[in-house]
Structure formats: C-alpha cells, structure tokens
C-alpha cells in the first residue's frame, strides 16, 4: 500500500455551527514530508485533531496505515505521534517520567534505551531528571516532541512546530525531521511559515476555509506557478510593445516606463540574452533592470486571494 494515510470526504461541523472542514480528500504517501499550509482558522488543526482522535469527525473516514481510525482505533493510533501546537505539559513530572508515561500510554513495553536515544537526539538527556516546570519554553517544546516519538510512530504530526521557536531549535527540528524521514517515518506538518514548507516538504497542500484547495509536489508547484520576471526600466516610455518583440511574453507597466518579461525558471534557455540583443537592435534603451522570483508565499497568497 503506497498511502500511509487516506482521508476521505472528511467533514467537521462544530456544535456552534461552524463548518471547519468540507469534504476533504487527501492521501499521504508513505515516507514523505507533507506540509499543510493555510492561514489561521483554515482547518489545519481540526484536520490533525480528527486523525489523532481528539476531535470527532462529522462526516467521512480516515485510514491510518489501512486501519479505520474509528473502528480500529488501537491499530491506527499506535502508529501516530502528535506534537500539538500549544505547549501542553505536566508541571511536576520529570522529563524522563513524562516521556516514559507516553510510551506506556501508547501500549509499548518499557524501553529505556529508546527513551534515552530520543532524549539525547533532542538534547534533553542532561535535563532528564528535571521537573518540566523548571524548563524553558524551547525545552518544553522538545519534551513534547520526545513524548510524540516515545512510542516509535510511523506517522508524525507536527502542528506549527516552529511557531515561536528560536533559530537553534528550528534548525535542530528540521534536522530531526529529515532524520526521521530517513528512518521511514511519514511527517505531516502544518505551518504558516512558507519558507518552512519550501525548505522541508516533498508535497504541499493548501487549505483555506475548510477546503483543501490544492495538493501538489513542491517542485511541480514551484515550476507551475513559480515564474520569474525581469523588469526593464526604460529611458523613454513606450505606448505599446514594439512589433519586433512579438515572440516574447512582454507587458508594459508603469505607464509605459517599464517592460516586464516573464519567463520560466525551470527551462535552460530563459531567452534573456536574445531579448536584450533584440532590444538593442530596436533601439529601446533602459536605465536599469531587476529580476524577481515568485516564492511559495506569492503562490499561496494568490491562491487564497483568488478564492476569497
């Protein structure tokens, strides 16, 4: 089976009448890093919470490694680890006790060697005897990750993992995510830091107002929508794009003071050299030129804007 997680026609309407998810269909491939992007309130956390068993779905079903999360909740849940967005920890427990507790809760027999490995990887080993309330926010975040990894999950959910996290922890977290992926763990992260998705993800899904509006390979998404533009600021304004430049995707901007050339970043031949020579031949002079690349952020903003 190639899909480790299969979400089918999932819907959620809260008691207040708020429709948080609308007919979401999503298949997650085994071993991939999937980034779920969306603005606040888009339904990211609701989606995760349903898969993890914290929120009941109103419609649809979810299969985790082939197991229905409602009917075969044991088999489904023991494969899943969750790091929630908020720092939710006990105060008086020691780091070691709380991580061991999580392993037991998920039905795994005691394994001190595994707990030690997890704590070491997260730089928590030296703090293992400390009470959680004595730890800093960043350390508490690490404890929550350690808890989620304590039972060796096959699917790991990271809900806004780097929100409010310092640079060092963010870097550690990214390294850890890659390491986990190398070990065969499937990772689904939600984020509104687009650079995070751009840096980490194999595929990207965009969720907006409870609807999954796009799921795409990151590379394909960047290629499809990732356009580069070259803007030439002209000496003399033009009324129209000169006839001799018909073969190029050119537009006039800034009341004819600028000529904008849009090209594909993925192709070898961008055509810039030929265009500049052609402009020279036609006697179109320019003061300066500037290039820009649409980031995932632009893509995202455009997508969401076109929907609303």
């Amino acid at each position: 089976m190639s899909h480790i997680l299969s979400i089918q026609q999932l819907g959620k309407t809260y008691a207040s009448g708020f429709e948080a998810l609308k007919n979401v269909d999503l298949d997650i491939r085994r071993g991939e890093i999937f980034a779920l992007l969306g603005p606040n309130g888009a339904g990211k956390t609701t989606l995760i919470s349903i898969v993890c068993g914290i929120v009941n779905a109103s419609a649809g079903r979810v299969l985790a490694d082939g197991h229905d999360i409602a009917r075969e909740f044991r088999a489904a849940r023991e494969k899943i680890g969750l790091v929630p967005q908020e720092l939710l920890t006990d105060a008086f427990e020691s780091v070691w006790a709380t991580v061991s507790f999580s392993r037991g809760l998920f039905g795994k027999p005691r394994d001190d060697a595994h707990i030690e490995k997890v704590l070491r990887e997260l730089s928590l080993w030296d703090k293992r005897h400390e009470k959680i309330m004595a730890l800093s926010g960043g350390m508490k975040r690490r404890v929550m990750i350690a808890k989620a990894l304590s039972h060796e999950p096959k699917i790991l959910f990271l809900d806004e993992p780097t929100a409010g996290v310092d640079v060092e922890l963010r870097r550690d977290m990214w390294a850890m995510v890659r390491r986990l992926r190398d070990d065969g763990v499937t990772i689904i992260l939600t984020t509104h830091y687009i650079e995070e998705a751009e840096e980490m993800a194999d595929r990207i899904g965009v969720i907006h107002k409870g609807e999954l509006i796009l799921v795409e390979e990151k590379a394909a998404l960047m290629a499809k929508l990732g356009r580069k533009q070259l803007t030439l600021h002209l000496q003399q304004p033009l009324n129209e794009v000169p006839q001799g430049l018909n073969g190029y995707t050119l537009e006039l901007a800034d009341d004819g003071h600028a000529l904008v050339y849009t090209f594909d970043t993925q192709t070898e031949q961008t055509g810039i050299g030929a265009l500049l020579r052609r402009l020279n031949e036609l006697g179109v002079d320019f003061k300066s030129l500037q290039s820009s690349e649409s980031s995932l952020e632009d893509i995202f903003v455009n997508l969401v804007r076109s929907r609303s």
Partner: protein
Amino acid sequence: MAASPMHFNIHGVRAIYRFEMARWFRTLLSSIASPVISTSLYFVVFGAAIGSRMGDIGGVPYGAFIIPGLVMLTLLTESISNAAFGIFMPKWSGTIYEVLSAPVSTAEIVIGYVGAAATKSVLLGCLILATARVFVPYGIEHPLWMLAFLVLTAVSFSLFGFIIGIWAESWEKLQIVPLMIVTPLAFLGGSFYSIEMLPGIWREIALFNPVVYLISGFRWSFYGVSDVGVGMSLAMIGIFLALCLGGITWIFRSGYKIKR
C-alpha cells in the same frame, strides 16, 4: 469506542495508574496527614469528649460506633476528590490530548484513573482504621465483608468523582458537588448516630439518603448491627455503581465535555 476483544492496552493502564499514584506520593504529607489528623480530631472530640457521656448504641460503645462512619466519611470525600482532580487536571492543563490520542479504550482510561483513586482511598481507609485503634479498641466481625464494602464504596465513589471531574470546567464546579452534596449527605448519613435515634418523619427522610445504606452496611461488617438490611446496603452500592458506569459509558460515547 469499544474495547477490542483481541487486545488490552495493559501498558497504557499501567502508565495512567502509575502517573496518578506518583502524583499522590509527591504530596504524601498532605494526602496522608490531613485525613489522619482530621480523623484523630473526630476521635478526640466525638469519641473521647462527647462519647464518654453517651451510652452504647445497639450494644456498641459510642467511640467504637463512630469508627465505620468516620472511615466512610473519608472514603467518600477522598474517592471523589482524588478521581475528580485526577481527570480534571489534564483537562484543565490540556495534557488530556495525549490520552485522547492514545490507543486506550474508555474502559482502560477509567481503570487507570479510577483504579488509582480507589487504591488511594482504600489505603487511607486502612490508615484511618489503624489510627482509630490507637484511640478505641474495636473488633471486626466480618473482615471479608468489611473489605468488600470498603473496596466497592471506594470504586463507586471514585467513578462518581471521575464524572464530576469531566463535568466540571472550573475549579469551583470541581468543589461544589463534594462540598454541597456529598459532605452533608455523609454527615446526615449516620456517621455519628444511628438513624433509629431520629424522630419519626426524619427517619423516613433519612432513608432517601444513599449514604445511610453505605454506613449501615459497613457498620454491620464491624459489629453485626445495622440500621437497614445488609442486602439492601449492597443493592444500593450496586445500583450506584451501575449508574456511574452507565454515566461514564455515555460520556465517552458522546464525547461530552472532552471531545468536540
């Protein structure tokens, strides 16, 4: 969410149980000292000071007569508060997400939390009995029945406390049922007197108090005397236990106050 017959998450139950017991041991002084001290005070005031002027009740000296009632009083309040706090705390701090997302069934969650709360209550009950021995000599006529009443009451009221812990969304609500309902019922349930001593109509009214049956049955296991039949006492505990189990099943089926 039904428990799979093929599998029982023993590690999960053990984890919850240990977690809850560890919480108790962390606050060992207040957990153990306060009921022991308050029971001792009851003995000093009711057993020695007032009791010396009281006659025997049903052939039992007053100091000994109040022992089963005192144990029940502590058992009820401690069972409820322990179990209520045990589940309220993760709900309040948000750490309940982990229990909800774990492969543990309703039954396993309840066994873990309620089992730990009931264990603490039974241990406290035994501790109070030992403390009482310092003040008053007494015997136990039916020790096995005594233990059965002790355990059944601890389990039933821990279940009740668990329901309160889920129902309460504030610290105030957490306190209100034990304080406003259970403590008065326990005091009026014949801890310090036989309901035979109540005047006419009040005796009939007292029979509506479920705690009367608990204390009466428990006292019978000590001294062989009771206000109501032992079978009746057991039936009442059984009904209460069944009601609590039904309530908990409904809570987890519907997700009441824990799942959205």
